[in-house]
């Protein structure tokens, strides 16, 4: 039996009378780079958002590491999952540094609160000791935070000099890289990406695709990547899911999708890009 990080069991979701996902069953392997392709409205974004509970299913269950997500603390769950969406949605009032360290800062803030609460339960002597401990902890955290930020900048290929800039002072490609660094900064084991490169030019997109592939190889994180571009899906994915009207048409490796399309929909989707992709594969 393979090692599944995420499992969908009989998941159903509808909005009013409109059924988006009738019955979804998928297992996602640990360390996979899974791309999901489909036309807009096919339910791929809904599927993604059910993983970090931005959307809750009507029926069925979703397991992460064997645990039902609906029983997990939603805030902790989301902080343990990287999330990157189209247009990057960087926080315009925060610098690159503050954007990247957003989630680590949230975690640190809550830790501090919990620690302080704990220390109110203690007697005075213990409290003084704990306060000292807290200060030391913060100091070391600040130091590691600095190192972490630099590490992620290196990984996404950004210059340190950009740290104090605001998002509106960055180019489109730089913004995407900051967006990825922000999604990765709390070292999540899962990274959800919803058409992250949808709004950048072709050349930048190529660079970013190579970058995310490298990041996946380096970190061995599980990536679930939504796109409506079959070329991108086949190039990036270790596995590809083709979705249509809330149902999975095919789930397989890129070569399999390309060579043995399971349904006419998959075949039609592949046809136009087949030649280009084959050409690319040959050059490898």
């Amino acid at each position, binding site marked *: 039996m393979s090692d599944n990080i995420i499992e969908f069991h009989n998941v159903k979701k509808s909005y009013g009378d409109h059924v988006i996902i009738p019955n979804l069953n998928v297992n996602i392997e640990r360390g996979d780079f899974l791309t999901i392709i489909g036309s807009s409205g096919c339910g791929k974004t809904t599927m993604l*958002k059910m993983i*970090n509970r*931005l959307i809750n299913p009507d029926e069925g269950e979703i397991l992460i590491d064997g645990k039902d997500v609906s029983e997990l603390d939603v*805030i*902790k*769950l*989301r*902080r*343990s999952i990287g*999330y990157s*969406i*189209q*247009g990057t*949605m960087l*926080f*315009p*009032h925060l*610098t690159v540094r503050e954007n990247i360290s*957003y*989630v680590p800062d*949230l975690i640190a803030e809550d830790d501090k609160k919990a620690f302080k609460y704990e220390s109110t339960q203690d007697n005075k002597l213990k409290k003084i000791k704990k306060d000292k401990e807290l200060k030391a902890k913060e100091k070391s955290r600040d130091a590691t935070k600095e190192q972490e930020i630099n590490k992620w900048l290196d990984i996404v290929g950004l210059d340190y000099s950009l740290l*104090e800039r*605001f998002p*509106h002072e960055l180019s489109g490609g730089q913004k995407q890289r900051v967006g990825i660094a*922000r*999604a990765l900064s709390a070292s999540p084991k899962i990274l*959800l990406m919803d058409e992250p490169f949808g709004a950048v030019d072709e050349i930048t997109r190529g660079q970013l695709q190579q970058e995310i592939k490298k990041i996946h190889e380096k970190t061995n994180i599980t990536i679930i990547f939504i796109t409506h571009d079959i070329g991108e899906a086949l190039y990036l994915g270790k596995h590809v899911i083709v979705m249509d009207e809330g149902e999975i048409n095919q789930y397989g490796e890129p070569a399999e999708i390309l060579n043995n399309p399971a349904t006419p929909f998959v075949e039609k989707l592949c046809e136009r890009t087949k030649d280009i992709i084959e050409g690319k594969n040959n050059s490898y």
Partner: protein
Amino acid sequence: MIGDLFNLFMSQSHFFLNLVIEHLEISLISVLLAIIVGLGLGITVSEYPRNKWILTLVNIIYTIPSIALFGFLIPIAGVGDTNAIIALTIYGLLPMVRNTYTGIKTIDPGIIEAARGMGSTDRQILFKIKVPLALPHIMSAIRNMTVMTVALTGIASFIGAGGLGVAIYRGITTNNITLVVAGSILISILALGIDFILAGVEKITAFGPSRKKFFSILKNKKLIAAVLIVILSAGAYVAYDNSTHKTIHIASKAYTEQYVLGHILEELIQDQTDYHVDLTSGISGGTSTIQGGLAQGEFDMYPEYTGVAWMTVLSNSGLYDESMFNQLNNQLKSELSETMLTPYGFENTYAIAVPKAVAEKYNLKTISDLRAVAGQLTFGAESDYFSRADGFENLTNTYGLKFKDTMDLDVSLKYDAVEQGKIDVVEVYTTDGRLYGSDLVILDDDLNFFPSYYGVTIIREESLKEYPDLLPVLNKLNGKITTEDMMRMNYEVDVEKKDPKDVAHEFLVQKGLISGR
């Protein structure tokens, strides 16, 4: 004009400085309250859509004319600074609530979803994302609202609050244009100055490096603590200063004679006792507003007239004459716990006057003579006169007069209107200084319609007990101010443009009531 202004500022710098400080106090406290409450409401409305009615409510309140809002609040908040601050705060709410709401609602929903998807709690989304992103909207609301409030505070003197409106109002009621201009200019300077400062703050809070510095300053707890300590100790000092000295609150109505009388009372008490005196002069709501203030203990005393006490304060019918003084005083004591002291001596009764030319044309000597010609004449008086029990309606009924037209005029504009021929018959006071210079002829009250109006101090009985040194000092004024004196003092203020305070001082020195300096 500019020379007059300069002289005015130089000679009364202390007066204006006090008004500026009061003005800033009232407007800035209101602004601060409006920011806090407005932000809170704005956030509530945008976070919980079912609270949208709040937006509608503040919108409706905003459409109430400011003067009316001040008036509405009198029964609840009384007269004075508190009322002004409440009204100004309520006015400031709309821009704050609306801009906070708009600022939060116009944030790209993708940004909020990103924040949520990354594991922010609702609170964190609000304070780390929504409020900072709405800040430019909020800052521009603060800026507009502050300028508006500083300007609007100028009207607050209408209900007895301090501030530069006092100068403007006094200027209008004593026919002193220079004073009106001076007050207005200072309000403009204050508003523009504050707008300038806030424009700087707005720049700092816009996205950019300086904003970061600004917020790191705000995070400096020691600095904030220091600022808070300074503010609190200043407040404590003021409170301490007020509590160690007993303060007598004097009110006066909004016309020349009352300004002068207010200052006479003020200076006499200041000179002869250890009490602090707080004079609120020029309360335009008049008798009923001041009586309300007395009932709530906001004022201790004010100069009144026997006839007004009889008719307006106690709503008695029938004609008042001075033989009924004791009866009147007993009634004040039993019904209102107020008492009259011995009259000052002068009588300021109402009279009906016409220009000399009109008198000659129609051969008018008594009010009864008007009956035949009233249909061709326009009658003018202040609006108060048309609503008062002893006013216009009774006068015309008693004498059987039917005027062609009537005109509501501010007291100080009456003489101008006569001069310009806009009114032919005018109601005047017998002590009015402007009677001196005018060519008005007083018509004889042949039916004895007008009651007796002797000037007298009305004081709360409780205040007399609380401040035992007061009575002997106030009694020094008994019979000291003749009708001639009062008319002359009014003339000095209205025509010679002297400051009522100086006129009051000169009078007290001349009568030997205080030592001259």
